[in-house]
């Protein structure tokens, strides 16, 4: 999805919300689900958050005038909505538990199933890629939320830094720094998981 088609979509939505909304759902459901899933680490919660985000987007636009809908930057706007819902979920879950658990044991039915990779690469390679995805997803979800959101939006969802600044409502310089810091944390965590014995020695 390029910026151009999003602009065209915003124009269509401003002309006739009801007849164009399905196109928005189809164009953005995968990325909103991905953002929620990679942020929350739970498939069931992610589906609810993505669904809720799209419903809220519709209701918000239903109350906007034509110009306001046309001016929407759909990619960062929708990302903001889904991230806010994800953060609320985390806060509620932490409130319910009293503490933030580091071992994120997904509830029954919520475990994220990594999709099978391209089978033409051979079963061994396919298994490796699936395992790699599972592992990186686990590392991402263990990042502190303040770095997790920028890293997911920049490198999983592929937002530009200007879009990221809109989505997170922070200056571009700040989100850049947060992405870099997030990547550095990821690298440390990855290397620690590769060499658990070395971490023990230096601990």
């Amino acid at each position, binding site marked *: 999805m390029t910026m151009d088609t999003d602009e065209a979509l915003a124009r269509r939505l401003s002309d006739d919300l009801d007849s164009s909304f399905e196109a928005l759902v189809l164009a953005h459901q995968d990325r909103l689900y991905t953002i929620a899933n990679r942020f929350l680490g739970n498939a069931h919660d992610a*589906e609810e958050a993505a669904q809720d985000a799209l419903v809220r987007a519709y209701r918000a636009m239903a109350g906007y005038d034509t110009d306001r809908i046309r001016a929407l930057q759909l990619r960062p706007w929708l990302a903001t909505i889904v991230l806010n819902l994800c953060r609320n979920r985390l806060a509620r879950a932490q409130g319910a538990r009293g503490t933030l658990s580091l071992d994120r044991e997904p509830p029954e039915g919520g475990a994220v199933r990594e999709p099978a990779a391209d089978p033409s690469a051979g079963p061994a390679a396919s298994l490796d890629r699936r395992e790699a995805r599972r592992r990186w997803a686990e590392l991402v979800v263990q990042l502190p939320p303040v770095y997790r959101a920028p890293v997911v939006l920049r490198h999983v969802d592929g937002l530009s830094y200007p879009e990221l600044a809109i989505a997170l409502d922070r200056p571009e310089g700040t989100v850049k720094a947060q992405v870099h810091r997030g990547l550095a944390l990821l690298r440390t965590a990855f290397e620690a998981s590769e060499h658990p014995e070395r971490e023990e020695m230096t601990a």
Partner: protein
Amino acid sequence: MTTAPIDDAAIEAALGELSLTAPRGLAPDVLVEVGLADHYATTQSPIGTLYVAWNGRGVSTVSLAPGDADFESRHREQTSRKAFRASSLPPALAARIARRIAGDRRARVRVDLRGRSDFERDVLLKAAEIPHGEVRPYGWIAAEIGRPKAVRAVGTALGHNPVPLIVPCHRVVRTDGTIGHYSLGGSENKRAILAAEGFDPDAFERRSRAGAHYTGSRTTHIVCNPTCRHARRVMDKHRVWFRSLDAAADAGYRPCKVCRPASGAGAVAIPA
């Protein structure tokens, strides 16, 4: 066995692999919740398998259909919306519908009447006020919504009731006192549903043919629709029947404030 340190490009490439596909039900659920599509399921009823469609705004369709494909195409024709098959009605909704149909007026069932004209909406909402076990003539609805001459249009609006049983259009009968047509499978179903509500359609038609359209009490001098709950409490020895409200007024009876019998309704030529 040390691995080479991983660089940012490799991490970014790994993160780029983390895209997922939304679960199949997500888009339909969103569209249904905002009312741009519907879910539907079947439920058993005394008059056969009922198809019920609903969305985030309320129940949108109740109908009898021979099969899913038939229902879906008819739903699309009537609403211009897609209908997605659900395995069953949401339990809370099913329970409210069942209570409502059984006559519990505290059971609230929201209905989606988008696409209906203001007039049709007025007619349907008025029909929804008729209590379980009672009937009113078309002319009563016309008078109640301030369109006393629109009796035929009331009949048409009820014939297009998208949510029969929930909006009980079966409780509206012809002004001449015959039971009349029913969109949900014909007049036999209408009689069966009314009978199940404790109303005797045969006795009602017999009395109507004899010209007994309104009933009153000699002790209170109040005149009612025959099925009004106050009218049904009148003892036989005090009961009096009227052909028209004018006749009742001439005899010194005032209309009941609960069932508000409408003048004009019933004042028609009684078929021989």
